[in-house]
């Protein structure tokens, strides 16, 4: 009897090993670059639009039976993935330059617009009470202004009583499209005060790093006397205290979907090569100055026609009918005029299996 039990145990163990091997082998063949399942669109990249893309994916799957598998691995990862051809589309918050797009034979189009919002945690200062301009904000992050009662801040806020506490400037510790948008704004609007350039990662001279929007939000909420910058959705959903910023027209504005949409509407999409539009520091009385678009990247030459057509069908659906979902989740949809430009000028360049992949 003992012998038999042992046999059974060993047989079961061997069967288990065989099953695991089969499962691993099976997965391998499913995710291989050539053999992704036809009813799933695979994308990867920026974390900022992830909530929107996954919600759109759910709705699209319910309507059309096509799944979206979007991996929020960060803009840098999304760019590498589409260059390597391991996904159907990549996503990035920082647009690639037209020359980079040409070199990699990629097309780039905007999918949604959002805003980056400076948030503060200062005792006695409520949401929207503090007013800052680009130069002051830049000087805080450059380490020039270290106390909340600094004369430069006082000058912008004559009626506000500001504590003499230290400023903890919280920034993103990971490489991030949000940092790119934020520093693009400082570069464009703060003049000589900001010398560190616009990039996804910055050699911050001062302050504290937080990982991800959630890391920055948590640090700002827990550390009194802190200032940080997060995506609008994070600030709004976490009930954080944001600041008013002075825009290019000299007006102080509060962040809102309307003030982001204003910036998106004023930008000149048609004349910008590769659609690499930067929406920061736009003119207009009501524009929020730290607005940015999130972009989709696709290859011009593809082998699998069905998959690419699926992806384009999905994006067309999102442009036409996804606007209300976008607003619910605090994103600004792309204006219709921009969508027609995308369809005419960009999607016509995408080939799959030697034929145009997109038919209107």
């Amino acid at each position, binding site marked *: 009897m003992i012998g038999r039990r042992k046999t059974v145990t060993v047989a079961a163990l061997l069967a288990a090993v065989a099953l695991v091997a089969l499962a691993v082998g099976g997965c391998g063949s499913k995710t291989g670059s050539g053999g992704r399942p036809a009813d799933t669109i695979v994308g990867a990249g920026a974390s900022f639009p992830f909530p929107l893309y996954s919600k759109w994916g759910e709705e699209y799957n319910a309507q059309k039976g096509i799944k979206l598998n979007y991996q929020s691995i960060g*803009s840098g990862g999304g760019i590498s993935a589409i260059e390597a051809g391991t996904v159907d589309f990549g996503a990035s918050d920082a647009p690639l330059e037209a020359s980079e797009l040409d070199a990699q034979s990629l097309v780039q189009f905007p999918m949604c617009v959002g805003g980056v919002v400076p948030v503060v945690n200062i005792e006695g200062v409520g949401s929207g009470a503090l007013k800052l301009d680009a130069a002051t904000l830049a000087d805080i992050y450059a380490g020039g202004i270290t106390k909340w009662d600094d004369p430069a801040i006082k000058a912008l806020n004559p009626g506000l009583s500001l504590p003499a506490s*230290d400023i903890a400037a919280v920034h993103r510790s*990971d490489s*991030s499209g949000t940092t790119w948008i934020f520093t693009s704004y400082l570069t464009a609007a703060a003049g000589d005060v900001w010398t560190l350039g616009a990039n996804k990662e910055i050699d911050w001279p001062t302050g504290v*790093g937080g990982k991800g929007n959630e890391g920055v939000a*948590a640090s700002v909420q*827990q*550390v009194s006397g802190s200032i940080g910058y997060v995506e609008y959705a994070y600030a709004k959903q976490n009930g954080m205290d944001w600041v008013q910023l002075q825009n290019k027209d000299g007006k102080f504005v509060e962040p809102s979907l309307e003030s982001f949409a204003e910036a998106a509407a004023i930008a000149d999409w048609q004349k910008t090569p590769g659609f690499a539009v930067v929406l920061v520091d736009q003119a207009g009385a009501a524009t929020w100055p730290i607005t940015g678009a999130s972009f989709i990247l696709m290859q011009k030459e593809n082998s699998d026609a069905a998959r690419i057509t699926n992806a384009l069908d999905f994006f067309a659906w999102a442009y036409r009918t996804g606007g209300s979902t976008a607003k619910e989740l605090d994103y600004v949809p792309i204006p219709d005029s921009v969508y027609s430009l995308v369809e005419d000028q960009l999607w016509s360049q995408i080939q799959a299996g030697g034929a145009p992949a997109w038919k209107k």
Partner: protein
Amino acid sequence: MSTLEWEARLGPEGRRGAAKAAPRRTHSRLTDPLFRWFVTACGAAVAVAMVALSAVLIASSWRAITTLGLEPLRTIPWSPTGGEYGALTSLFGTFVTTVIAMVIAVPLALAIALLLVEVVHPALGRVVGTTIEMLAAIPSIIFGMWGIFVIVPLMQQYVQPWIQATPLGRLGLFSGPPLGIGVFTAGVVLALMVLPFITAVSRDVLKMVPTVVKEAGYGMGSTTFEVMSKISARYALTGIAGAVFLGLGRALGETMAVTFLIGSDFNTLPRSLFDPGTSISSTLANTFNEATDPLHVSALVELGLILFLITMVFQLVAQLWLARARRMSGTRA
């Protein structure tokens, strides 16, 4: 099937066994080597994985090793955008957080271990011991979240201003604005995370101290404190040192909790313990998934390799030391 038939099948080899036992024994004749083969394969797989891991780490960091040479060990700023890959900030943060953690955790762990073994009733000791061991089961990300939501505000509002007000504040170690987030807070939370490992091993080695020796101490008129400090602690010293190395190895590599709390400043060495800094593992956690430049990726892997070597050395020392402790108490007991 008759015995004869079995004999015919098995040949002369099988006949010896068949003569002694029922035919079923043939199963175990097959299963024994099979089982041996299976467990050997499992054991070998671990060794192969270890070697392969080291090989991959070295291969992937080769570009950085050959391009940058010893430069990372001499330069401070870690600035991929500027092409600078200094490992000193990360190394410094790793060591300082570990030292803070050990300074807090070792005395605490020893006190708890002595309490469990020498002072409280064994039943209560088991309950308290299990509770402390359960600390080890808490995922490190939970420690990180608890750290940022509970410990950081406490540190900023009470602990750090209090330390600055005491004579300790004049040392310069604790200067700068109290941010709550930084090297010090990371070290404190790290201390709680390594506490269960040091406590558990120390308790076990303290238990191995022979009762006769302790009773002899009491017989000489020693107090409990004297027996603990002069007999138990000295007897178990080697084992306790091993426990400390074990905790050290864990503290060096801890990632998530430290990443949440250390403040991630990659460019400057902290001027005080309250300043933000970075550790090797949190630099990796923060920047690895967005690194695209091959040299950047390679330099990050090299950081990982350095951490791997450091923790391996500490683990080896810990294992050797513990083995020695067990051997010594084994012969004496």
